[in-house]
């Protein structure tokens, strides 16, 4: 969930320092700070469920790293400073500079992003986020909706597709061989 605050243009460095000085969590969206409220247990549970499933697959096949918990990725550092936070992200080894996880905001886009919808999230806000991820080079975005028990799959160059509880989510070419029943994400 995002709560809009003031309109002063902030930089990526401002965000880093502010987050650490105040202990508050923000995203930076085109120079504007957007406060992030803590999530619900249901949100956290589903996030962890999917993160754990992804991590065991990624570890088993030594494909890269799965990170979770509003991890900051710098999508634009200059013109319209934007740092988006991912609920869950998969980063393929090739994308990790020196194969190491950064200790500050990541200066690259992950391969896969999972966003879990909170009750207060608006459709447009979520679509803006999906667009920001895709345009930054994320190959696959899953928007998980706990209320409808669905996952919307977004990719550049394809029509959005919604998978329901009876469907199986696939890793496509981003995580070849990965499969997960949508129902399992919510169980």
């Amino acid at each position: 969930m995002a709560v809009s605050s003031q309109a002063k243009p902030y930089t990526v460095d401002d965000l880093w320092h502010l987050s650490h000085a105040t202990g508050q969590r923000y995203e930076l969206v085109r120079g504007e700070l957007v406060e992030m409220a803590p999530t619900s247990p249901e949100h956290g549970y589903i996030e962890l469920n999917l993160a754990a499933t992804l991590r065991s697959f990624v570890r088993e096949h030594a494909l890269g790293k799965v990170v979770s918990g509003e991890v900051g990725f710098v999508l634009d550092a200059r013109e319209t400073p934007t740092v988006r936070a991912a609920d869950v992200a998969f980063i393929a080894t090739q994308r990790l500079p020196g194969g190491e996880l950064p200790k500050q905001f990541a200066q690259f886009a992950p391969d896969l992003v999972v966003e879990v919808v909170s009750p207060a999230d608006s459709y447009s806000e979520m679509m803006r986020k999906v667009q920001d991820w895709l345009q930054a080079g994320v190959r696959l975005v899953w928007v998980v909706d706990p209320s409808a028990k669905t996952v919307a799959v977004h990719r550049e160059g394809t029509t959005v597709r919604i998978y329901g509880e009876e469907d199986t989510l696939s890793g496509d070419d981003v995580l070849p061989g990965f499969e997960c029943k949508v129902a399992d994400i919510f169980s």
Partner: protein
Amino acid sequence: MAVATEKRTYTVDEFWELCHQTDKRLELAGGELRELAPANDEHGYITMQVAVVVSQFVKRHRLGYTFAAETGFVLSEEPATVRAPDFAYVSRDRAPERWSRHFARFVPDLVAEVISPTDTYGDVAQKVQDWLGAGVRVVWVVDPVARTVAVHRAGTAVRVYGEEDTLSGGDVLPGFECKVSEIFAR
């Protein structure tokens, strides 16, 4: 806004009969009834803004036909889904030779949905999916609060246009352009 009502499921024909026995505005999603509340003033105004600007363009270029809110379109027979978009446009190629005086059984080229304050992310996502799945070529999701239009075009990823942007008709309405701010201006 849609409120789920009773649990039994309906066919398109049963739904047609029901709609003629009640004054309620209803939709049928996956065989289940959804009641549509009357729209708020801003919603109605913005829906009309979209309808006027697109209709003028369509008439001027004799491209096809445009439909007001409440027109029912059959998106699927089994399970029965009949949705009423806020606005729809169908090209002459896709339009039937004569009106059926029943729910539309043709697929619009363009559908616009204006978000209501009570619409959840999931409500809107499902509508978009239903339209695209039925073969609609482009869906505009107009958000009066964010003052944006999210454009879902078949075969491409979503793009969100803000007040400083211009909405284009692409290959669905070639040559059509409209400033997003114009839709929300009063």
